[in-house]
Every structure is written in structure tokens, then in C-alpha cells.
């Protein structure tokens, strides 16, 4: 029991700098993450367009290519193969480290988590602010690679040594940036875990926590335990790269000359890197699970089906995610018995997400479904993620992977889970919480147009890539037409590129709608979606969320269409006899 003196918790006056720049308010930090990551998303998208142009129209110079420096294009504006390597490496690095992870674990976590558990702020607002500025610093360092000699990192987002350990300044900056980003993630996760354990509002038992909170909470454990492992990999890679140690470098002969390195093991890097990066795959999707659960329940006007199974599935995904990492390494000369173990665990880990998907379907069944924009994105998430999961099964099997490893089939699979999964989840959540964050509604018509264009051209772009994979088309090659067996794929490539360009262009509709709605959108009511969770009961825009009152929680978050309640929803802070 705590005695709270409510008069002392009113928010104090803030200057411009402490309100918008070095803010310690979790809502503002969440919005800072949102804006910064959307900028990165835009940049990463532009790089992807350039990649697609090279593959789709290899005989046409890059539009505006002549304006680029000669380290990137030749005098006619054609892309150099080295620049192609930079493009796909930086596209993936930006999208994964600076767009998807911070959107899910920066924007949603910061904005939604304290509001949904009824906390006044994060446990440590200062640490929260530092976490955001570490993210910005990491972004600046990684992007500054474009302006140094030799260009930005070009060893893929996985940066496997020996290539990455022998690369130049751009790669060094990439390593330092990723390390700093890791610190940012760890600080964030420490905050989220502590906040959930200690700062829940009265009555907010673990069994009454909304699923986005559960998802972010569990994701934070994965971030917490996996990210330091990445940091150690980056430390060793940095030493190899700058101080010519040989942690990851065996005896190497470059242009006929034996380098000084010896005895290192490139496979060690792959083990350590994937020990982080497989949990990271779930770090990139799990908060979206939470968001989509919330959206599906709200827009079906039904309680979420199998709440406890949802939480159990999330926990078992998080636990198992630490013992599947070597399925990225089947073709690396991994011991065959070890490969069988990892194949077994990998197929096992598909079970909990399947439970979650069936729970969503059961929630939809017989629901009073409202197809607003967030719900459309959530439904797209459900179906696209399922396709991505099914193609993942082919890659999980050691036998299938012999053929599909490092082909466009992998590219198709990862885009189905990362774009079709995470990004649709991000769109669902962003359009859902936009009224809370900015006090205005987004335009429904523009949202619908953006959604349908995205869904159609996403599928045209990435479904087609499965067929490229069937032909044995390797990923990460700048000029596939140099290989005789791939000459027949030019038509497919051109088709994919045209679809991708339209897909990219339709994101501008979202950007326009987003920016316009912040300033000119229709004024949002207090609870526009008629949802139950606590964030919709906040009236105070400033620091402290609930001002001089404390929200008290009386029942679970998904009491929609309860037979004892006249309306079809019952906010968590409203008491009704007999419902708990």
C-alpha cells in the first residue's frame, strides 16, 4: 500500500527544448522514434528502389544517376557493382536496425506501454531519453559511411567476415553504429521490463494486461539477453577491422599475398551474430503480434480468443528463439547432427505463432467486424505473415534449404514476414494510435487507397520472387544476366521492378496523409475506436498522463459486447458489478 500525494504530481512548465527535443515524456519520445524511424523507412525504401532499378532495367541508366559521384555510377549513369553492394547492404541495415526495430520497440513501446498499464511515465525517463539519442547517434554514424572513402558498408546486413573484417571505413562506421544502437536497445528494454514489473496501475494484474504490453514486455527480455551478444561480436569484428587481430580471420591470401592474420574462425562470427539475430527476428515481429491482437479484438467487438494461450505462445516463442539460430547456417559446413537439432527446434517454433494466428481467426469468427483502416492492415498482417511462415518451413528443413539457401526464395520469405508482417503491423498500430498521439484522425479514404495499393503491389513484387528462387537465382548479385542460366528471368525482374516502383510510390500517399493529418486532420474524439484500454481515458496531454487522479483497473482489457453491459465495450477503469 502506498500513500500518494496527488497534488504534487501535476506537470511542470517545460521549455521548447525540453518539450520537443530533449523531452523525458514517454509520449514525446515515442513520437520522436516514430518520426525518426519513418524518415529512415523512407530512405531505406529509396535504396530499395535503386536496387530494383538495376535489376529490372539493367540497360537503362539510373534516373538522375549522372548526378551521383563517380564512386557510385559510371559516366553514363549506370550503377557500379560496388555501389549495388552498398545499396542492398544499407537497405537491409536501415530497414532492420533503424526502421522496423525502433518503430516496434521505440515508438509503440514508449508511447503505448506506460499508457496501457496506467503508469505516469517510464521507470527512468532519463534513461529513456538517452536511449532515443543513442539511436539518433547510431543512425548518423552509420549513414556517414556514405560520405567516406570507399562508400558505406557493403558486406550485407549480416556483415560476415572475412569480407567485413577486411573492408574499409564505411564498414568500420557501420560496426560502431550497430554497437551504439545495441546500447540504445538495451537501455530501452531495461526500462520496459522495470516499468511493467513495478509501475502498473492499481488493479492492473498481469492477467489484465493488454496484449501489446505483454508482447513488448516479452520482446524486451529477448532484446535484453540477445543484444549484448551482438555487441561482443561487434567488438571482435571492430578489432579485426581496425587492429588487425584475427578473431574471425583464418589464413587468407589476397591477390597472391598471405595476410598476417591466422587461426581465426569465420564461423564463430556467424554463431554469435545469429545468436543475436534470430531472437532479433522475433524482436522485429512480436510487438506487432500484440498490436494486431489489440486491433483485431477492438474492430471485431469481441474479446480476444484464448488470452492465456496468446501470452503462453509469446513466452514460448521468446524462449525457443534462443535455440534455433544455426538454421541460418545449414550451408556453412555445420555438423549434420547439429543441423538436425536446429531443424527440429525451428519446426517446433512454428507452433506458437500458429496458435496465435488461429486465436485471431477465432476472434474474428462471428465478430461484428468493422473494416476501418487499422483493421485492414491487421487482417493483411494476418494473411501475409502466414504466407511468410509457410515459405519459412521450406527453409527450416535442411533438405529444402540445400536448394533455397541464399536464393530469391529467401528474399521473398523475409519480405513476407518483415514487410507483410512487421510493416503491416506498424501501419495497423500507427493508424490505430494516431488519434491518441496527435489528437486528430487520419483520412479514412486515403488510408483505404494506400492500403489496397500496398497490399496488391506488395504481393505482385514479392510473391513473384518465389519463382526467381525456384530458378536458383542467387540473391545479392548486381548483374544476374551475366549468368547464362538466369537470362530467362529478365522478364520477371522487370515485372517485379515495375510493381516495386508502384509499391514505393503508394507509400507517398501514406506519408502525405500522415503529415497532413498531424496539422489539418479532423479533430479526434477521446475514444474514437470505442476501445477498453487505459490510454483512451487519458485527458492530460502533458507529462504525467493522468494528472491528479490515478486510474484504477477493475477487469481485463477485452470486455467487448459483454451481455451485462448496454454498450458493446467496457473500459478497464469503469467498474461494473460482477465483471472482473
Amino acid at each position, binding site marked *: *500500500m*502506498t*500513500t*500518494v*500525494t*496527488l*497534488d504534487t504530481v501535476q506537470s511542470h512548465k517545460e521549455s521548447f527544448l525540453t518539450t520537443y527535443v530533449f523531452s523525458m515524456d514517454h509520449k514525446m519520445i515515442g513520437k520522436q522514434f516514430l518520426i525518426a524511424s519513418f524518415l529512415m523507412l523512407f530512405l531505406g525504401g529509396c535504396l530499395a528502389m535503386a536496387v530494383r532499378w538495376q535489376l529490372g532495367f539493367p540497360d537503362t541508366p539510373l534516373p538522375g544517376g549522372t548526378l551521383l559521384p563517380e564512386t557510385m555510377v559510371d559516366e553514363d549513369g549506370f550503377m557500379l557493382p560496388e555501389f549495388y553492394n552498398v545499396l542492398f547492404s544499407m537497405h537491409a541495415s536501415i530497414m532492420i536496425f533503424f526502421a522496423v526495430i525502433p518503430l516496434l520497440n521505440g515508438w509503440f513501446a514508449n508511447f503505448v506501454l506506460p499508457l496501457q498499464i496506467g503508469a505516469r511515465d517510464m*521507470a*527512468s525517463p532519463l534513461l529513456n531519453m538517452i536511449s532515443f539519442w543513442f539511436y539518433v547517434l547510431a543512425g548518423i554514424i552509420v549513414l556517414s559511411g556514405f560520405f567516406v572513402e570507399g562508400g558505406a558498408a557493403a558486406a550485407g546486413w549480416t556483415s560476415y567476415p572475412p569480407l567485413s573484417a577486411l573492408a574499409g571505413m564505411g564498414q568500420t562506421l557501420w560496426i560502431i553504429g550497430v554497437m551504439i544502437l545495441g546500447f540504445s536497445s*538495451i537501455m530501452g*528494454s*531495461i*526500462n520496459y*521490463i*522495470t516499468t511493467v*514489473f*513495478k*509501475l*502498473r*496501475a*492499481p*488493479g*492492473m*494484474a*498481469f492477467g489484465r494486461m493488454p496484449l501489446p504490453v505483454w508482447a513488448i514486455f516479452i520482446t524486451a527480455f529477448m532484446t*535484453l*539477453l*540477445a*543484444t*549484448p*551478444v551482438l*555487441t*561482443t*561480436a561487434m*567488438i*571482435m569484428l571492430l*578489432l579485426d577491422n581496425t*587492429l*588487425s*587481430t*584475427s*578473431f574471425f580471420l583464418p589464413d587468407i591470401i589476397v591477390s597472391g599475398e598471405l595476410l*598476417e*592474420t591466422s*587461426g*581465426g*574462425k569465420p564461423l*564463430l562470427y556467424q*554463431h*554469435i551474430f545469429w*545468436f543475436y539475430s534470430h531472437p532479433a527476428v522475433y524482436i522485429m515481429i512480436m510487438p506487432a503480434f500484440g498490436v494486431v491482437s489489440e486491433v483485431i479484438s477492438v474492430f471485431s467487438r469481441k474479446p480476444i480468443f484464448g488470452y492465456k494461450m496468446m501470452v503462453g505462445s509469446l513466452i514460448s516463442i521468446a524462449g525457443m528463439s534462443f535455440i534455433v539460430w544455426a538454421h541460418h547456417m545449414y550451408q556453412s559446413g555445420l555438423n549434420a547432427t547439429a543441423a538436425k537439432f536446429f531443424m527440429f527446434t525451428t519446426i517446433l517454433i512454428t507452433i506458437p505463432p500458429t496458435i496465435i494466428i488461429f486465436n485471431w481467426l477465432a476472434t474474428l469468427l462471428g465478430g461484428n467486424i468493422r473494416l476501418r483502416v487499422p483493421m485492414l492492415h491487421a487482417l493483411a498482417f494476418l494473411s501475409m505473415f502466414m504466407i511468410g511462415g509457410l515459405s519459412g518451413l521450406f527453409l527450416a528443413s535442411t533438405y529444402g534449404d540445400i536448394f533455397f539457401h541464399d536464393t530469391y526464395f529467401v528474399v521473398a520469405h523475409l519480405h513476407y514476414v518483415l514487410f507483410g508482417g512487421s510493416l503491416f503491423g506498424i501501419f495497423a498500430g500507427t493508424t490505430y494510435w494516431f488519434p491518441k498521439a496527435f489528437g486528430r484522425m487520419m483520412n479514412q479514404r486515403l488510408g483505404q487507397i494506400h492500403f489496397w495499393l500496398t497490399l496488391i503491389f506488395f504481393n505482385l513484387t514479392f510473391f513473384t520472387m518465389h519463382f526467381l528462387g525456384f530458378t536458383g537465382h542467387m540473391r545479392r548479385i548486381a548483374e544476374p544476366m551475366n549468368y547464362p542460366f538466369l537470362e530467362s528471368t529478365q522478364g520477371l525482374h522487370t515485372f517485379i521492378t515495375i510493381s516495386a516502383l508502384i509499391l514505393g510510390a503508394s507509400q507517398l500517399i501514406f506519408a502525405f496523409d500522415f503529415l497532413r493529418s498531424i496539422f489539418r486532420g479532423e479533430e479526434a474524439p477521446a475514444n474514437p475506436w470505442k476501445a477498453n484500454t487505459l490510454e483512451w481515458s487519458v485527458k492530460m496531454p502533458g507529462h504525467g498522463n493522468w494528472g*491528479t487522479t*490515478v486510474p*484504477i483497473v477493475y477487469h481485463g482489457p477485452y470486455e467487448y459486447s459483454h451481455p451485462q453491459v448496454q454498450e458493446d465495450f467496457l473500459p478497464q477503469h469503469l467498474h461494473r458489478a460482477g465483471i472482473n
Partner: protein
Amino acid sequence: MNETTIAYPGEEGFFGNLHWGKLMMWVFLASDVMGFASLIAGYFYLRMLSVDWPDSGELLNVMLTSINTVFLLSSSFTMAWAVDAIKRNDQRAMLRQLGITIFLGTLFLLIQGYEYFELFDLFSETFDERPFSGHLFASTFFLLTGFHAFHVFVGLVYLGCISVAAARGRYSAENYLALDIAGLFWHFVDWVWVAVFLSLYII
């Protein structure tokens, strides 16, 4: 005054009587454990697959470092006594024990620095004039001990700040949370050394 008494769920059940600040340090330490675990696992991976791994007993000064280990581990006890002293509100004993803790930590770093100088010469001879990068034995040794020494250094700065606050009389039997949290970090730094020491020098 508008006062209300409310039962927060965070005060019952899981970590009920643990302050959030202390919980935060525990959570951070869980993360740090993974960092050390990853480096030690990587060390053993490289060592077991190596064909020419030297005998650590011949190259390293095991005796000196064993004594050094005793210094570091004793500083863990003096840290605990400092917290114990403030629980009894004994300001002078707390400051004395904090001083000894910082002294022992600094002594550890100095002795390790001396060992580094010696090893630089030795490794230069043994490994082809490249004391740091000539052989993975040297690289992993400096990486692991350096990573730990960095933690000791951070811990010393941390304890330095805490001592300044303690000397100004900021802590009492009712309020010693910051000291307690700093102690938690210091204990971790001390006892993780055992794992590092065993891996590098003994096994």
C-alpha cells in the same frame, strides 16, 4: 492535501519489496552476464579449435593474478560491510569501508596494468613482434581481461561518485538505496572476474 492510499500491484507478488531502481540494476546485470558469457564461449570455441594454443601456465603470471584476485574479491566483502554499516547508521564505518573498496579496486587495476606491460614484452617475443594481434591467445586474453577491466574502471568511477555523496552525508539508515545499487554492480564486477580468471588462467 489530497491524499489517497492505493494498492499498486507492483508492490506485491513479483519483486514486491524491491525498489524499481534496484530491479533495474538486476535487469541490467542479466544483460551484462550475456555479454561476458558470449565472450567466454567465443574464447573456448577459438581455443578448442586451435592447433597451437600455448600453455597459459607458462605464459601468464598465475601467481600474481591469483593474489590480485584475492584483492578484488575482498573488495566485494568491504563493499558489503559498507552497506551493512549504513544500515546501522554508522557513517564513519561506511566511509572507511567504501575507501578500502575503492583502494582495492584501484590496486587490482594497477597490478593488472603491470601484468599487461610484462605480457606486452613477452608476447612480442613469442608472437612475432605483434603482442596484441600475433596470436589468438594474446588477442582473446587482452579482449576478455580488457572487457572486465573496463567494467572495474566504470565501477570505480561509479563508487567514486557514491563516495562523494556519502561524504556529504546523503545516506542514512533509512535512505541508502543508491549505495545498495552501486554495491550490486560492484559485486557483479568482482564475481564475474572469477569466471574470467578460471577460463584464462586455470582451465
